[in-house]
C-alpha cells in the first residue's frame, strides 16, 4: 500500500475498489496487466467505495492480479492477487470471440483501442476516410470530432481507452429547421449509396460501413451550426465560438492518415472538454449546461422514444429467428372478420409471426416496425418461400416516416387491413397520435384498423418495472378519444382478461376495430 495524491486503496473485493482519497484523481483499474476501468477517486465513490460498474460484474468470477494505478503519474496504489465471486479459474474479460474488452468513459463495455493493432485500425481508418468523402460529396465539410479529434491532436493516434470514431460537421445553415433538412438530405445521400443509416436525432446519424472482412462498423456523425456567435454541436456543445475556428478546414493526423480538422482544433477541444483537454482523463464525464441541453433537445431530439429498449429486445440473434407457434388470437379474429384481404399491414410487427401467417395464406403483407431488422428471420423465410411479404421500417416519432408509409399504403387498391397488436401500449401519446394519422391516410379508400392493447385496471396507476418494461397498459378512454379525434369510428370494442405468468394478476386486454367512414 502506498500513499499518493489519490490517497490509498485499502481493498479490492466483490463490492468494488475501496479507497481513502486525499484529492480527486483519476485512477485505472488493471486486470493482469490490462486496463479495464477508470474512475475518479472522489467523484465516482460513495463512502470510499467505487462499486464495480454493472456491465463489468458478469466477468468478475475468478482470480486476477489487480492493480490500481494513478492514470497520470503511473503510481501504483494497490496490487494484489484478488479472488472474486467463486474465485475459481482466471478472470477473463473478453467477448464471445475472445477479443479483449474494457470500459469506456461512459462505463460501456467495449473493445477499446489500446487492445487493437494496425490490422484492426486500418479498416476503421479506411471507413473513416470513406464516410468523410461521402459527406464532402454531399456538400458538408466533416472532420473527426470528440475523442477522435482529441486523440489526433494530442497523440496523433486513437486514444487507448476510446472505442469508436466520431465525426462532425458544422452546417452553413442559420436556422435549426434548415440544419434538420440538411441532415435529412445527408441521410438520403448516404442511403442512396447503399449505407445503412440510423438516426440518433434530427441532427445526428450513425453510418454503418461494411468492412472487407464483413464487420459492420458504425461511425457517428454529429451536426452543428452557428447561432448568434455560438457554436451548437450535437450532442454536448453550445458555446461562444468564432466561425474562423472551424472554416476553412485544416488538417490533422490520425494514426498516420491526414484527415480534415477544424481550422483551430484546440478551440473545439477546449469547447468540448474544457481547458484541461491536454491532460488525459479516461473517466471524463460531460457536464453539458442545462441551457445547451434544453436547446439541443428542443431543436433536434425526441425521435427515439424507447428505441434503445426495442433494439435491445431484438438483439443477440432474436431478430434472425423465425417465430414459431400459433398466430395471435387477434390475427385469427381478423381472418374471421374479413372475407378478402388485399393488403394486410402489421404495425409494430416485431418479429412478424402474424405477418408470416397471413402471407402463407396468400395475403399480400407488409410489416412495419421501429426496431431495424426486427423481422429479419421472417423476411428471409418469405424470400425463400416466395411470399408476398415486405418488411419496412416506421418511426411514429418521425412525422415524415408516418406520412411516407401512410401514402405508400394509401396507394394500394382493395381491402386494406391494419393490425396493431400491443403497439398502442408500447408508445406514448404522440406515438398514438401518429398511429391514428397513419391509419387515416392508409385507409383513405376504406378498410379497418384492428388494435389490441393492455388496459389499466380501474383506478390503477401503473408503475413500470424498470426501463425494459416498455409495454405499459393504457387508459381505454384516452385511446378511444385519440381515435375519434382523428376521425375514426370505433365499430367493435371488447375486453378480455389475459392470464399472465405465475404469480401475476390478470390484465384486461382491449380489442378495438376502427374505420374511417367516407
Amino acid at each position, binding site marked *: 500500500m502506498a500513499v499518493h495524491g489519490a490517497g490509498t486503496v485499502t481493498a479490492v473485493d466483490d463490492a468494488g475498489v475501496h479507497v481513502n482519497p486525499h484529492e480527486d484523481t483519476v485512477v485505472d483499474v488493471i486486470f493482469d496487466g490490462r486496463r479495464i476501468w477508470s474512475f475518479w477517486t472522489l467523484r465516482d465513490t460513495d463512502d470510499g467505495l467505487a462499486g464495480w460498474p454493472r456491465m463489468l460484474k458478469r466477468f468478475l468470477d475468478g482470480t486476477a492480479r489487480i492493480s490500481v494505478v494513478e492514470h497520470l503519474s503511473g503510481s501504483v496504489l494497490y496490487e494484489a492477487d484478488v479472488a472474486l465471486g467463486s474465485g475459481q479459474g482466471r478472470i477473463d474479460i473478453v467477448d464471445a470471440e475472445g477479443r479483449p474488452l474494457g470500459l469506456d468513459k461512459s462505463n460501456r463495455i467495449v473493445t477499446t483501442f489500446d487492445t487493437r493493432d494496425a490490422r484492426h485500425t486500418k479498416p476503421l481508418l479506411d471507413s473513416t476516410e470513406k464516410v468523410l468523402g461521402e459527406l464532402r460529396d454531399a456538400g458538408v465539410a466533416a472532420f473527426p470530432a470528440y475523442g477522435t479529434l482529441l486523440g489526433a491532436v494530442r497523440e496523433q493516434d486513437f486514444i487507448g481507452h476510446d472505442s469508436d470514431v466520431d465525426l462532425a460537421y458544422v452546417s452553413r445553415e442559420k436556422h*435549426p429547421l434548415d440544419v*434538420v433538412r440538411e441532415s*435529412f438530405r445527408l*441521410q438520403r445521400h448516404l442511403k442512396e449509396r447503399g449505407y445503412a443509416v440510423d438516426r440518433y436525432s*434530427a441532427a445526428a446519424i450513425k453510418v454503418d460501413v461494411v468492412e472487407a472482412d464483413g464487420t459492420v462498423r458504425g461511425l457517428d456523425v454529429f451536426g452543428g451550426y452557428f447561432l448568434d456567435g455560438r457554436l451548437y454541436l450535437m450532442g454536448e456543445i453550445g458555446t461562444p465560438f468564432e466561425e474562423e475556428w472551424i472554416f476553412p478546414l485544416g488538417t490533422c493526423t490520425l494514426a498516420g492518415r491526414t484527415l480534415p480538422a477544424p481550422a483551430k482544433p484546440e478551440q473545439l477541444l477546449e469547447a468540448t472538454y474544457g481547458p484541461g483537454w491536454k491532460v488525459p482523463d479516461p473517466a471524463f464525464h460531460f*457536464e453539458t449546461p442545462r441551457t445547451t441541453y434544453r436547446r439541443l433537445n*428542443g431543436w433536434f431530439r425526441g425521435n427515439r422514444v424507447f428505441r434503445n429498449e426495442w433494439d435491445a429486445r431484438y438483439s443477440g440473434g432474436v431478430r434472425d429467428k423465425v417465430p414459431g407457434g400459433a398466430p395471435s388470437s387477434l390475427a385469427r379474429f381478423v381472418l374471421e372478420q374479413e372475407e378478402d384481404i388485399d393488403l394486410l399491414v402489421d404495425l409494430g410487427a416485431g418479429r412478424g409471426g402474424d405477418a408470416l401467417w397471413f402471407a402463407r395464406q396468400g395475403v399480400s403483407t407488409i410489416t412495419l416496425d421501429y426496431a431495424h431488422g426486427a423481422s429479419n428471420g421472417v423476411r428471409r423465410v418469405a424470400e425463400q418461400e416466395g411470399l408476398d411479404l415486405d418488411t*419496412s421500417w416506421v418511426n411514429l416519432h418521425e412525422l415524415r416516416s408516418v*406520412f411516407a408509409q401512410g401514402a405508400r399504403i394509401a396507394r394500394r387498391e382493395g381491402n386494406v387491413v391494419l393490425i396493431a397488436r400491443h403497439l398502442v401500449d408500447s408508445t406514448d401519446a404522440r406515438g398514438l397520435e401518429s398511429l391514428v394519422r397513419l391509419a387515416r391516410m392508409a385507409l383513405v379508400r376504406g378498410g379497418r384498423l384492428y388494435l389490441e392493447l393492455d388496459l389499466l385496471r380501474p383506478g390503477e396507476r401503473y408503475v413500470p418495472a424498470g426501463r425494459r418494461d416498455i409495454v405499459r397498459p393504457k387508459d381505454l378512454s384516452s385511446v378511444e378519444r385519440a381515435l375519434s379525434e382523428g376521425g375514426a369510428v370505433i365499430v367493435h370494442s371488447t375486453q378480455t382478461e389475459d392470464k399472465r405468468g405465475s404469480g401475476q394478476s390478470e390484465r384486461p386486454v382491449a380489442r378495438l376495430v376502427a374505420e374511417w367512414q367516407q
Partner: protein
Amino acid sequence: MTGSSSKAGSSRAGLKDRAVERLARAVAGDRLDQLQQRLDDLEAEIQECRQLNIRLAEVTDLVEQLLLPMAARDEEKIAAAVEKYSRTI
C-alpha cells in the same frame, strides 16, 4: 474538467441554496411558488416552440421530394418517389 468537483463543496452550496430559499420564502411567501410555476410554464412553452422546427422540417422535406414528381403528373414517377422516400429515411 469535471473530475475536480468536490462533494464537500457541493454540500456547502446545497446548504447555501436552502438558506437562500428559506429567506426568500419568508419575504415573498406564495409569490415564490407562483413565480416558479410561471418559470416552469415558460420553459415548457419555449420547448414547444423549438419542437416545431423538426415537424416543419419533416413536412418541408417530404413536400420537396414529392411535389416535383407530382407536378410532372407521371403516375409511375409518383409511385417511385413515394417508394424511394420511405426507403431512404
